[in-house]
């Protein structure tokens, strides 16, 4: 049999031709309706956040404007009217104590919360990937030094760090950016761990060896051969990190090291709203609901992405793998 016949081999033997990389991921993602809905919800949130000034103008309200007349001063400043002062002018009611419009504040809050969370996630992913790669590719010394470093960061309590950092940075520095760094710098350990483990596995693969034989430098190998393979687990993990970061921002506000007023953020609104949940439930429910929706959307999208990025996911739980797949495993090594 000559080499020429290879092309004429029946299609049934080769796996069905599938489209490449990103297109394939998109196609698999598209097949999951829940992931699509989640993505749509997130996109909507982002659009709403971006359009906050426009929507505010539409409602006819301003983020900072106080409405002393809309709250009952003698009763601690609880909004006058039912459902937290919902009215034609204030679609979602007003904030207790100040009478500021909740609808606009929630939208503006979305900007800060989403931006801080996304920024922090980026920082975490960036540092995590860099450290994880370096640890995975470096020698024992580099590896242990970096894992010790991440232990130090994990062990550093958030508040101490936040106060320390806030002190060094002049107060004219925008708070949200600072928060991005505080949260980002403290919680990259998980990403680093994942990337390191994955790198250790990947670097043993033959295609990395082949790249070395081709004379590629370490940097090139990291960039060309390893990073693309890390995308799937990292993106999946980032989808978990992002909502966690939103909640972390809320916790920071609660401890008084969050964004500074009058800038609203969901976290800050939640932390001031906590005590109001009986006197003015709407005030708590609205940011909580938004937060929940966001977290849910990210989780669902993350799950979807994970399955979409993992070609094996399509054949999960199959009792028998195809012969080709099974034989690809390393042949038995002696005990």
């Amino acid at each position, binding site marked *: 049999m000559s080499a020429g016949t290879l092309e004429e081999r029946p299609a049934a033997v080769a796996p069905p031709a599938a489209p490449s990389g990103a297109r394939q991921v998109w196609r698999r993602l598209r097949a999951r309706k829940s992931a699509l809905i989640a993505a749509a919800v997130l996109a909507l949130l982002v659009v709403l956040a971006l359009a906050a000034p426009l929507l505010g103008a539409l409602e006819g309200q301003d983020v900072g404007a106080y409405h*002393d007349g809309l709250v*009952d001063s003698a009763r601690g400043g609880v909004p006058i009217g039912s459902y937290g002062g919902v009215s034609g002018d204030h679609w979602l009611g007003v904030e207790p104590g100040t009478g500021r419009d909740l609808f606009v504040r929630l939208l503006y809050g979305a900007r800060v919360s989403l931006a801080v969370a996304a920024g922090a996630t980026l920082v975490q992913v960036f540092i995590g990937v860099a450290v994880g790669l370096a640890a995975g590719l470096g020698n024992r010394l580099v590896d242990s030094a970096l894992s010790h470093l991440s232990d130090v960061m994990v062990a550093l309590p958030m508040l101490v760090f936040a106060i320390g950092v806030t002190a060094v940075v002049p107060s004219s520095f925008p708070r949200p950016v600072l928060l991005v760094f505080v949260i980002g710098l403290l919680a990259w350990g998980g990403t680093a761990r994942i990337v390191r483990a994955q790198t250790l596995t990947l670097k043993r693969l033959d295609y990395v060896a082949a790249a070395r034989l081709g004379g590629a430098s370490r940097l090139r190998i990291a960039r060309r051969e390893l990073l693309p393979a890390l995308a799937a687990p990292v993106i999946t993990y980032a989808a978990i990190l992002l909502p966690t970061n939103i909640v972390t921002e809320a916790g920071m506000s609660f401890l008084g090291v969050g964004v500074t007023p009058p800038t609203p953020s969901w976290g800050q609104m939640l932390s001031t709203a*906590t005590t109001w949940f009986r006197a003015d439930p709407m005030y708590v429910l609205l940011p909580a609901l938004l937060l929940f929706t966001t977290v849910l959307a990210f989780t669902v999208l993350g799950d979807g992405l994970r399955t979409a990025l993992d070609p094996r996911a399509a054949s999960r739980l199959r009792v028998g793998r195809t012969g080709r797949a099974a034989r690809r495993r390393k042949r038995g090594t002696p005990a």
Partner: protein
Amino acid sequence: GPKEAGDAKGGGAAGDPKQGGTLTVLNREPQSDFDPARLYTSGGGNIPSLVFRTLTTRNRADGAAGTKVVPDLATDLGTPSEDAKVWTYKLKDGLAYEDGSPITSADVKYGIERSFAGELSGGAPYLRDWLVGGERYQGPYKDKGGDGLKSIETPDAKTLVFHLKKPEGDFPYLATQTQFAPVPKAKDTGTKYEEHPVSSGPYKVVRNTGDGERLLLERNPHWSAKTDSQRHAYPDRIEVKSGLDPAVINQRLSTGSGPDAAAITTDTNLGPAELAQVSGDKQLADRVGTGHFGYTNYLAFNPRTKPFDDPKVRQAISYAVNRTSVVNAAGGSSLAEPATTFLPNQKALGYTPYDHFPAGRTGDPGKARELLKQAGYGEGAAKGPLTITLTHSTAQDFEASPEIATALQAGFKKAGIVVKLQGLEDNDYKQRVHSTKTQPGLFLGHWGADWPSGGPFLAPIFDGRQIVEDGANFNSARLNDPAVNDEIDEINKITDHDAAAKRWGALDKKIGEQALTVPLFHPVYKRLYGKDAKNIVISDWTGVLDISQVAVK
């Protein structure tokens, strides 16, 4: 005065107070300072005043009557010399510590002396400033061989004679502070004394864990009600649990299950949200005590910086302030009363009403703009719109907190004043605003009375000789007006409190003309107490219920 001040028995559950039972105290802050030398306020606040008796003490009565000072260990309020520079006290008979040993005048002297020790810092500065030689004395630990502060004489075991640098008509008020509590020298363990301070009051410390986190106080058998007309000591035991979240404290008080029924708090007010909820519930609303403490929250200018050096700017800002927003931000009209005077609305402090820059309820932007135009600010004016930075703390305590700063910011906007907020971490904030070197041009300040008299309220803020260059400075305007200084000295000579109060009030009104501060509001304290708590007494001295009066049976 407080609403509940009606019946003489005090508020709280019905029926006459009886002895017995356990009173639970649910607090936020642990009593981590329990050394009489380190405590700042009169009687060290509530719990310490159960353990420490002092030469004089506050009158445990509702409302304005509670601003009076009354004898405690001493037989009277002290005998001043002609010029009020020498004060003589006699101790009552039959005074004893928790171990039964007698309390002597030497012990009181020793207690004062140890408050000068560097190891036991924390108390108020008055002794140091008033006593002859006080500024040089370093406490008994450094000065081992010597016979201590010469300006305190103890001719016999019952007599104390204090020699002051200058006349101080308020000395009886100072003698309410815990530095005037007796400390037996033999039992002094220095910095460890606070773990178990020796009691001279109705209760003694039985257990103190977690550095004041949990306290158990039981009756001191050697205390005798005969020598103490102020403290009642109804409960048999007092249990203090601290380190709790304010929301949880109030929730527990309102639920009142188990021991929480006989509970109070000595440090947690109702917040606005809780007030909103409580006010809708008749039963709960009945269990709220209201108190007025002499306290003012204000905007402080530093007239040495631009643009606040221009009186017109300061006046414009005074006109522009929207006190309704600010009061709302501080919790609404039930928790804060708008202020136009620096002195709080209390007769004892010398309150004299005035409103030099009437801003009405919500500010007078027109008047403010007009003044600003005269000063050269505004749209199209030479210097453009007035842009200022307001410094505040990031701690959410309704004092110098972000809420109040943003409310002001929103109000000033109407007068065309652009306010930038500078929120500082609380320590940073305190250090900066109270240092002459770093003091910002405009910040949120607050000041409370060390005792109900105009002196300690006005002097630290406006007395030019109290400008502290390297330490904590409270005269933020750096006012050093000989006329003001002289008047302060003159009033200090007066030992008739009511007469002095009138003059303090007049002085306040006069200083107010300079617009060195913008008084914003006086806080009102609302506190919930357990359903079994009886005999609730809230004086205007502290503004909070007096634990020594509470009964649970």
